[in-house]
C-alpha cells in the first residue's frame, strides 16, 4: 500500500471516530428531546481551551482535562435548563431551540476570544507526543491517532452497552419513543433529559480534546464547523443509531481526509455537505435507521 494513502486512511479513521463521538452526543439529546445543541462545537472548543489554560497554570494535563470536562458538563445542564427547555415550552414556533442553542455557542466563542485571545494556542500532549509511533506492516502509525481511535471507540461501545443493558438505558429508549407515556410510567423524564445534555456535552468535550490533540492547536473558532460533520455522521448512520453514528463518522472522516489529501484540504466541508445531500436524497433514514412514523 502506498504510504500517503495509508496515512490518510489512518487519519481519516481517527478523526472519523471522533466525528462519531460528536454524532453520539447529538443523538443522545435527540433521543430524549428531539433537539440537539447547535452550539456543540463551542463546547468542544471550550473544553480544549480550558485544558490548555489549566495546564498552563501548572495543573497536570490529565487533571486539566478532567476539570474541563466537569465545567463542560455543568454547561450542558445550563444549556438544557436555559436554552432548550424554555424554547420547547413556548408555544408557536417550535424551532426556537435551534436559535437559542446556537446563540449560546456564539456567546461562548465570543467569551473565549475575549479572555483567551483569538490566536491559536498549542495543545499539550496528553498521553503521547506527535512523534511517537509504532510500525504495523511496515507502516508508521502515530500513537496519538491510535489513542484517539481507541478512546472514541471505547466510549461508543460503552454507551451502546449502557443503552442496551441498563435500566437507565431502557428508560432513555422509552423517553425517545413517548416522553408523556414514560412520565406516567414513573420514569424521571426531567432528570433523564438533564443527564442526556450533560453526557452529550461531555462527549463533545472529549471529542474536542481528541481533535485538538491530533491537530496540535486550538482557537476560539475551533470546533464550530465540527457540529456539521458530526451531524452528517449521525444522518448517514441513521439519526439515533449508535453503531450507525460510528459507521457514518468513519465514512465522513475517511472520505474527507482522502479528498483533502488528493484534491484540496478546503474541500473537507464540501465533501461532508455533499454526503449529507446525497444521503437525504437517497436514504433520509440513514444506513441503520428506520423511517420515522409520524403520529397524527
Amino acid at each position: 500500500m502506498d504510504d500517503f494513502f495509508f496515512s490518510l486512511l489512518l487519519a481519516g479513521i481517527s478523526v472519523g471516530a471522533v466525528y462519531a463521538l460528536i454524532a453520539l452526543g447529538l443523538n443522545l439529546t435527540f433521543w430524549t428531546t428531539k433537539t440537539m445543541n447547535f452550539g456543540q462545537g463551542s463546547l468542544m472548543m471550550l473544553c480544549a481551551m480550558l485544558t490548555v489554560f489549566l495546564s498552563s497554570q501548572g495543573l497536570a494535563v490529565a487533571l486539566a482535562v478532567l476539570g474541563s470536562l466537569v465545567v463542560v458538563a455543568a454547561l450542558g445542564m445550563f444549556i438544557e435548563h436555559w436554552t432548550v427547555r424554555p424554547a420547547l415550552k413556548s408555544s408557536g414556533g417550535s424551532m426556537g431551540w435551534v436559535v437559542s442553542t446556537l446563540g449560546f455557542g456564539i456567546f461562548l466563542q465570543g467569551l473565549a476570544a475575549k479572555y483567551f485571545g483569538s490566536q491559536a494556542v498549542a495543545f499539550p500532549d496528553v498521553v503521547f507526543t506527535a512523534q511517537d509511533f509504532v510500525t504495523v506492516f511496515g507502516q508508521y502509525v502515530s500513537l496519538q491517532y491510535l489513542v484517539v481511535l481507541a478512546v472514541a471507540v471505547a466510549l461508543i461501545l460503552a454507551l451502546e452497552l449502557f443503552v442496551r443493558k441498563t435500566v437507565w438505558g431502557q428508560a432513555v429508549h422509552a423517553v425517545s419513543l413517548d416522553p408523556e407515556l414514560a412520565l406516567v410510567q414513573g420514569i424521571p423524564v426531567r432528570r433523564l433529559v438533564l443527564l442526556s445534555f450533560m453526557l452529550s456535552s461531555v462527549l463533545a468535550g472529549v471529542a474536542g480534546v481528541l481533535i485538538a490533540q491530533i491537530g496540535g492547536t486550538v482557537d476560539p473558532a475551533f470546533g464550530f464547523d465540527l457540529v456539521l460533520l458530526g451531524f452528517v455522521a449521525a444522518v448517514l448512520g441513521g439519526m439515533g443509531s449508535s453503531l450507525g453514528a460510528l459507521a457514518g463518522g468513519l465514512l465522513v472522516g475517511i472520505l474527507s481526509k482522502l479528498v483533502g489529501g488528493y484534491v484540496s484540504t478546503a474541500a473537507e466541508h464540501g465533501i461532508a455537505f455533499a454526503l449529507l445531500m446525497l444521503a437525504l436524497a437517497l436514504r433520509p433514514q440513514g444506513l441503520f435507521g428506520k423511517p420515522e412514523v409520524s403520529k397524527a
Partner: protein
Amino acid sequence: MNALRSRLSALVADWRLQVLLVVALLAGAPLLSPGTVQIASFVLIAAIFAQSINLLTGLAGQISLGHAGFFGIGAYCTGVLVKTHGLDMTLGVPLAVLLAGLTGWLLSFPANRVRDVYLAMMTLGFGMVFFEVVREWNGVTGGTMGLPGVPSAALRTLTILGMKVDGLRYFQLVLLVTAGVMLLVRNLTQSRIGRAFYAIHVSEIAAGSIGIPAGATKQLAYALSGAVAGLAGALYAHLVGYLGPESFALPRSIEVLVIAIVGGLGSIAGQVLSATLFTFLPERLQVFAEWQFIAYGLILTFSLMVLPKGIGGLLFLPPRFIRPGALARAATLRADVAALRPIAGGTALEAEGITMRFGGLVAVDNVSLRLEPGRITALVGPNGSGKSTFVNVVTGIYKPSAGQVRFAGRDITGLADHQVAAAGVVRTFQDPRLVPHFTVRENLLLGAHGQLRHNGIAAVLALPGATADEAAKLALVEAVLALADLTEVADRPIDTLPYGTRRMAEVGRALLARPQVILLDEPAAGLSEAEMERLSQLIRDMKAMGLAILLIDHHMDFLAELVDDVVVLDSGRMIYRGDIAGMRGDPQVIAAYLGDEAAHA
C-alpha cells in the same frame, strides 16, 4: 397598552404616512452628509435582508443559519456579471436575485421528507461551504484577495443605463427598492401564500388536511427568502465595490438573525427599526463593536425568553392575513352556501379491505365501506376500536398495510394527505387542528385555499383579479360563518375562543374546501346542547348539498336523528353494518360495548 399598539399599528399601516415618509427621505437625503447617507443605505440593505428572515422564519417557521450564503450569492453574482462581463446593473441584480432564489429552492429539496431541523443544519452547512467556495475559487471570486473594483456608488464608478450614480442617487434608488420589497412582503403576508406559510408553520397536519402541501410550501419559502437575501446582497455589492469572503461568513448570518428576531418576527415595521438600531450601534458606539459577538450570542440565547415577539410585538399588533381591500370588497357581495355544492352532484368513496398494522398491533382489520353522495354514515365503536386510524388511512396520513381506497374512479390509496384533500376528500380532527393565531375568518378562508383561482404572482402584486377572487371566497366564508353561528366571533383569534366554537370553525373550514366527501372525527365532543343543535343542522345542510359524510361519534341520540347507515368497529374489525335500529339490537354490538355477559343476559 393594546390601545397604544392598535394606534401605532394603524399609523404605520396608513399608506399616506408611508408615502410621506418615503418622499421626505428622498427629498431630505441631500441635506445629510455623504457618510450618513451611506450608513442609511446600509440600514436599508439590512432591512431588506431582515425581511428574508421574516419571510422564512416569521411566516413559514423555518430556520436558516447560513443566510449570509444567499446574501453572498447575490453580491458575487451581480459583482462578477457587472465587473467582469460588463453587464448593466439593471440586468446583473435581477439575475443575482434569481440565482439566490434558485439556490434556496434547491437547498430545501428534502423539505418533504425530513424534520425541519435537518434543513436548519443544511443551511448551516451551506453557509460554510459557500464561504469556502468563495475563498478557493480564485478565477471567479478573487479568492481570499477578494473582488475589488465592482462598480460602486461609494467609489463613484457605478453607471446605471448610462447614467452616473453617486452615493446619494444610490440611496434614493435603494430606498425605492426597499419600499417595494416591504409592499410585496406585506401583500404576500395577506395573501394565500402568506396564509399557507403560516399554516405549515404552526400545524403541518392542519395544512395538509385542506390540501396545502408542506414540502412544496417550505421550498417556496426558502426560494423566496433566498431571493430577497440575494437582492440585499446585490445592492450591497454595488454600494461597497469590494467583495471579500469574510463579509459573507457566519457572523453575517448571525447578525441578520439578531436583527430579525429583535425586530420581531412577523412585523415588517419592527424589522426596519431593528435594522436601524443594529447598523448604527456598532458604527456609533465603539464599545458595542468590541462586544458584538458576545452580545449577539446573548441576544439569540435569551431574546425568545425575554422578548419573544421583539420590538414589533411590543409596539404593534400581530399581523393579519387578509387584505383589508378584499374584506371591504367582500362586504358588498352576497354568496350562497349552495355554491359549495360538490361538482357534478358528488362522487362515492370506496374503501376496500383496509388493514393497518403498527408492528404487531392490528389497528384496522379488513374494513370495507362505501360513502355515497347525500348519505351520512356513522362510524362507531368503543375507544381504540380503530375509527380514527381508519380516517387517517383514508385521508392519507397513514399508508394502509393492505387494502384500497377508490374515489372518483381512481385509486387514491397511499396518496399524501394534501393530495387526498385536493381530490375532494376532507376531514376534521378529534382534537381541532386550527391555526391558533388566525382569526376565525382567517381559519375559514384557509379552508378555501385550494379553491382560489389566482396565482402567486397575482397575489403578491395584489392585482385586481386576485383581490376579486379573494373577495368572492370571503363572501362564501361569511355565508358559512352565518350558517355555523360564528359571525359574532369572526374577527377573534381562534385560540381565545371556547372549545365548541373551535370545533364548529373546523367543520366550517372543511366545508369551505368544497369537498365531495367529508369525514368528521367526533365533531360533537365537548359541544353544548345548543351547539350540538347547530352542528346537526350544519351536517343536514351538507347532506342536502350532496356531500358524502362519514361521522364518528359516541353520542347515540345525536347520531340517531342524523345518520342513514351505521358501521360498528370493535378491535379494528367491522362487526355490524346497517341501520341504527338494527344496531341497537345486535348482540355483537352489545357485547362490544357492555361486555359478553350483558349480551347473554
